């Protein structure tokens, strides 16, 4: 692989990971339905394709493992073996290893040093399953032996020429080729096969039946016979005619000479590989190491093959080290190998094996179209939306500045047309980016299986609505939060089988992962039928952690108390288990969901279980914002967080301790003057009526005091760069239709600042 090699590698890695994943899913399903032959077929196909692809790259141990897996699966496919959980375990181990190797190959361009050994181990474990029924011998390439009278029926002139060719002295191969009558319909051109025959010294063509011109003559019924003599080796001729072997009889007049020992294909392959490795440029600091290991390989190979002494190899190594060039070793290799080595990739580098994180969700190319192109399309559609939103500004100017109401009306009518088309365009582009949630759900089957075994809680994992589609980025961002939620459900949510029996529930717990569409949102639920959240304990813990006061805890309705577990640093589990441990709690999950523009809610019933609901926009590329004005600038607040806008007279504020509060629907809501966390200048004078934007946050409802409300809008957020990139309270910026810049607030972050 030279130019284009890296993109090919990327392609291989993306596809390889997809294949490993789909093979894993098939395996897990097969454990439940071992007789599903369609599943077996797709499992086999995934492994088979992986093997084929891997052969293109310098990853022989990986190829070996998938090859061994393919062999076993072939037997399963043929019905000679049944896939049991033992076999599934080994196959899953093999897939895990392959996955780790793909990661290693991604980082290092080669596999870790111990890969060979690991591959042998896995291959051996896989081989155990194989039926050791004697495989039927492969049918040979050569046709039936040539009868002694193969020259019969030839014209005298041909016979004489054949005799001459046969008397050349050396060994010759005799070929008798009668193409079958339908051979043209397989794309065969027998004459071409014969004319390109290696070592051809004689060729005769005869008809197998009289060729009679006339209306009945069919040029596409082959009726010829070819006889030829070649001085090439039998195997060369056989290889050349392999495609038509069934139609050819081949005979050797004298046995071909035995292959010389120097042409041992294995030795040759090894030497060639060494030469290729030497020819590769490598980092200068690794030069001495490379020369030394090359010399070790050569001193093992060459003396055994009688191609050189160990001393010669060592001398060449020393020469190479002294010269700082591999030339001496290369010359030695070239002498052993007749053809010169070709450059091929594989540069030795400091190995960093192990460290492959397990089951980490990866960004994968699920779309088989170049994603950059779709992203570009999406971006252009987004810009069109922004440009379209400029028309109402224009209409206002037409009316206000130029006093033409008629023109303003026409512009607005035009705007409606644009609106419709752009909407449709946007929908169409978003459709392309839609992928089924199944692509992320499927990888959880394995996770749940492993978790259930690890904590010894047998359970049923129900997946629903896998076909529900959402934007690719949203789907990918879902992976990590869902892993946490599922881990929580299995680890904390479900009781042990004994506890469940004692509570009169079936010993087997249930974890349900479901997805459905609700208008323009996708709703994902992770539900367990476990013990439910102990709200009293949540309150106690929150007080203990100093998150709220005991008074607040007592007054808090259950629903709000439940949301306390979403606060940073909260964990209800007495001990941090090795499953959901690692200090990651629900707060992280909530943050991740919100970052994708979604919301998270909780429901729990003691003894009945807990349900976590994630609601996400179908697409996050276009965001709906509520615009507000602060200190002369415009800011955007995600519309999905806005509950209501209100004008509150100063005298309705409750000023006790801490920030002022207002009462809405019998509840106290704290007010935050947005100018303060954003460190804007204080308002010159307090207005008589405050403009308050009431938003739902992870901390509950908050009223945001702004200078003025503006309209809602749709924008394509652009990430911030430069000095603004470091500001956590801004999630991005967008260009408005009138050319001004809108800063988009990340309210969760904003509210973390003192106010």
């Amino acid at each position, binding site marked *: 692989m030279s130019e284009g090699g890296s993109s090919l590698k990327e392609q291989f890695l993306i596809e390889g990971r997809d294949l490993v994943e789909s093979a894993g899913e098939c395996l897990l399903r097969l454990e439940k339905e071992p007789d599903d032959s369609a599943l077996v077929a797709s499992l086999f196909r995934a492994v088979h394709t992986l093997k084929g692809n891997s052969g293109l790259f310098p990853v022989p141990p990986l190829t070996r493992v998938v090859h061994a897996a393919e062999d076993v699966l072939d037997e399963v496919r043929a019905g000679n073996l049944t896939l049991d959980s033992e076999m599934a375990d080994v196959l899953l181990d093999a897939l895990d290893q392959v996955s780790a190797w793909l990661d290693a190959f991604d980082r290092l361009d080669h596999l870790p040093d111990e890969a060979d050994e690991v591959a042998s181990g896995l291959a051996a474990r896989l081989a155990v399953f194989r039926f050791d029924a004697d495989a039927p011998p492969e049918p040979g390439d050569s046709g039936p032996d040539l009868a002694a009278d193969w020259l019969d029926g030839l*014209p005298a*002139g*041909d016979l004489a020429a054949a005799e001459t060719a046969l008397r050349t002295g050396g060994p010759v191969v005799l070929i008798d080729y009668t*193409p079958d009558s339908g051979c*043209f319909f397989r794309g065969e*051109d*027998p*004459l*071409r096969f014969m*004319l390109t025959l290696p070592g051809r010294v004689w*060729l*005769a*063509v005869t*008809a197998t039946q009289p*060729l*009679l*011109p006339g*209306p009945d*003559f069919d*040029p*596409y019924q*082959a*009726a*010829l016979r070819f006889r030829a003599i070649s001085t090439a080796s039998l195997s060369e001729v056989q290889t050349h005619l392999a495609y038509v072997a069934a139609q050819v009889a081949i005979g050797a007049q004298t046995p071909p000479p035995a292959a010389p020992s120097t042409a041992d294909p294995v030795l040759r392959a090894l030497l060639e590989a060494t030469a290729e490795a030497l020819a590769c440029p490598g980092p200068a600091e690794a030069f001495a190491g490379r020369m030394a290991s090359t010399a070790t390989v050569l001193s093992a190979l060459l003396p055994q093959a009688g191609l050189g002494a160990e001393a010669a190899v060592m001398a060449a190594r020393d020469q190479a080290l002294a010269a700082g060039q591999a030339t001496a070793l290369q010359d030695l290799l070239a002498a052993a190998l007749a053809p010169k080595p070709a450059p091929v990739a594989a540069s030795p580098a400091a190995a960093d094996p192990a460290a492959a994180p397990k089951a980490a969700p990866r960004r994968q190319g699920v779309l088989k179209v170049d994603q950059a192109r779709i992203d570009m399309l999406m971006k252009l559609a987004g810009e069109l939306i922004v440009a379209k939103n400029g028309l109402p500004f224009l209409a206002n100017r037409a009316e206000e500045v130029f006093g033409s109401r008629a023109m303003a009306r026409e512009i607005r009518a035009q705007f409606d047309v644009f609106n419709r088309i752009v909407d449709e365009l946007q929908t169409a582009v978003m459709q392309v980016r839609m992928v089924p949630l199944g692509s992320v759900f499927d990888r959880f089957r394995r996770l749940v299986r492993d978790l259930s075994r690890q904590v010894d809680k047998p359970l049923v994992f129900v997946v629903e609505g896998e076909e529900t589609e959402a934007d690719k980025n949203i789907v990918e961002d879902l992976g990590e939060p869902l892993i946490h939620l599922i881990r929580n459900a299995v680890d904390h949510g479900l009781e042990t089988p004994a506890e469940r029996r004692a509570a009169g529930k079936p010993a087997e717990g249930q974890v349900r992962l479901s997805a459905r569409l609700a208008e323009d949102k996708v709703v994902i639920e992770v539900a367990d039928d476990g013990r439910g959240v102990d709200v009293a304990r949540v309150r106690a813990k929150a007080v203990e952690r100093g998150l709220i006061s005991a008074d607040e805890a007592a007054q808090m309705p259950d629903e709000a108390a439940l949301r306390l577990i979403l606060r940073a640093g909260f964990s209800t589990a007495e001990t941090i288990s090795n499953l959901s441990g690692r200090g990651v709690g629900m707060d992280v999950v909530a943050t991740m969901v919100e970052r994708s523009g979604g919301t998270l809610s909780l429901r729990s019933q003691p003894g009945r279980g807990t349900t976590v609901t994630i609601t996400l926009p179908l697409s996050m590329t276009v965001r709906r914002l509520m615009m507000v004005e602060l200190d002369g600038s415009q800011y955007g607040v995600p519309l999905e967080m806005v509950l209501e806008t209100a004008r509150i007279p100063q005298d309705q504020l409750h000023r006790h301790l801490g920030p002022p509060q207002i009462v809405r629907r019998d509840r106290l809501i704290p007010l935050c003057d947005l100018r303060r966390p954003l460190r804007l200048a204080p308002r010159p004078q307090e207005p008589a009526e405050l403009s308050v934007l009431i938003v739902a946050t992870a901390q509950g409802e908050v009223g945001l005091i702004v200078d003025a409300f503006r309209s809602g809008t749709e924008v394509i957020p652009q990430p911030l760069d430069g000095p603004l990139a470091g500001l956590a309270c801004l999630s991005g910026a967008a260009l408005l239709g009138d050319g001004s810049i809108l800063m988009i607030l990340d309210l969760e972050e904003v509210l973390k600042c003192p106010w």
Partner: protein
Amino acid sequence: MPLVIDGSLARIEGAARVDEAETLVSFLETTADPVVDLGPTNHLHTAVLQVLMAYRPALATLPEDPVLLALLRPLLGEAGPELNRAA
């Protein structure tokens, strides 16, 4: 198209393809005193070779390509008066 038909002369330029066997047959069937020119030919698909072997048309010239020539001479060499005249 390697098969060029000009009145009663069909010339095969370069490599005759398999589907030209049909065209050649219809040319040979429908043309009075057809002549085939193999001078510029460097390959004949087996199906085309078969047509020539069946119809044995008069040949204007034999191929220049020595391999093809060696193959065709014994097959078509004594084909017809046209070739003998030319040769």
